[in-house]
């Protein structure tokens, strides 16, 4: 499908997956990871995407312009573990055409 973008996602075991994600299904990055089962159910998206658990934390490796960090996401990242400068919550990153080629790595489970 034309609307698909390609994402490069490194899972928690360090394995790189190149996956296609639709831009017309209102999906976020956490949901893409779940739909491809790149992390076991129950270890990602625990709160369902409310920026309230940080189980979908990831490190952004490419220099794509992403939506700004919202208040909820910022406060959650302030209490999450393994946080780095390039940490984001996958559930707060909606998949848009601009994200084609985005590279991310899933943060360790905690």
């Amino acid at each position: 499908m034309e609307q698909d973008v390609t994402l490069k996602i490194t899972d928690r075991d360090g394995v790189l997956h190149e996956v296609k994600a639709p831009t017309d299904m209102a999906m976020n990055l956490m949901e893409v990871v779940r739909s491809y089962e790149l992390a076991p159910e129950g270890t990602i998206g625990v709160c369902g995407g409310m920026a309230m658990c940080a189980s979908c934390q990831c490190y952004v490796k490419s220099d794509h312009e992403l939506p700004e960090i919202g208040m909820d996401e910022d406060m959650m990242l302030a209490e999450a573990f393994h946080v780095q400068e390039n940490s984001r919550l996958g559930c707060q990153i909606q998949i848009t055409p601009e994200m084609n080629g985005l590279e991310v790595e899933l943060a360790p489970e905690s």
Partner: protein
Amino acid sequence: MITTHILIIGAGPTGLFTVFEAGLLKLRCHLIDALPQPGGQCSEIYPKKPIYDIPAYPEILAGDLTDKLMEQIKQFEPGFTLGERADTIEKQEDGSFVVTTNKGTQHKAPIVAIAGGLGSFEPRKPPIPNIASFEDKGVEYMIREPELYRDKDVVIAGGGDSALDWSIFLTDVAKSVTLVHRRNEFRGALDSVDRVQELKNEGKINLITPAEVKGIVGKNHVEGVIISKKDEEDYTLKTDHFIPLFGLAPKLGPIANWGLEIEKNAIKVNNALDYQTNIPGIYAIGDVNTYPGKLKLILCGFHEATLMCQSAFQRIFPDKKYVMKYTTVGGVDGFDGTRKEAPKAVVKKIE
């Protein structure tokens, strides 16, 4: 020993609604939950957030859903063991089960319904390499007994309500209170943030931000923590206790060792029939179970609970005849002696 017909593990929406469906069949229920209040995730994670897919409620707050369910099941007098985690299960000779909590409370029932959601909520532990060896030796993830900190030096880490509230509380108990947070901003209730500011100004709370506890030092007990502050060299702060308060996260926990078939962090059940697990008499309903096509939705949990209760009834009373009755027809007879019923039709002659 607490005895009941259906022992429900988990007091979230699915577990609570089970009490209603069981009550219609005159079966009594008792619920165990690791959290101190009923409601599960709805109360713990998102009480103020709206849900839009509860049938007949165009919008309802998760906390209100819990309150409504509690109201709906009230007349069936459910028992609760709250703040305790179901740890072990033992099958008895008579076919019933005894479930024991981490605090030793024992429950006996012919039917166990696991409605455990994503698992029991456990404190999130910071990834400090040697932290496990100091647990209960100066590291506590939750405050059970404030007197433990009387005249002690205490370091609290975290930026939410519990970190703020306990810091405030312990200023009256401990010798010193230090609060460490990675940001200058806190997300707790505004009152608490203001109070911590006051106590800091008065010199009663030592606030270290933005900073992190990176390590723990001590021989057999915590003697200090290593504080890492941006653009400064790490240093050791002397303390008797380190209390990381980073909220709770659900873990499947001991249920995973009950001999149940687990797939994708969930319990496999027979969805063609009654949501029973591979162990007869043990059912799994709501978010904790899995089957082909499973959706983790509250409304699906309600459905699963309803079918499960019918099967439970047949297991407990194999020879009793029963047909399902609409509540509109049969009314609702509570164990507390109350009765709800549809008003009788009024018949009046026209002269």
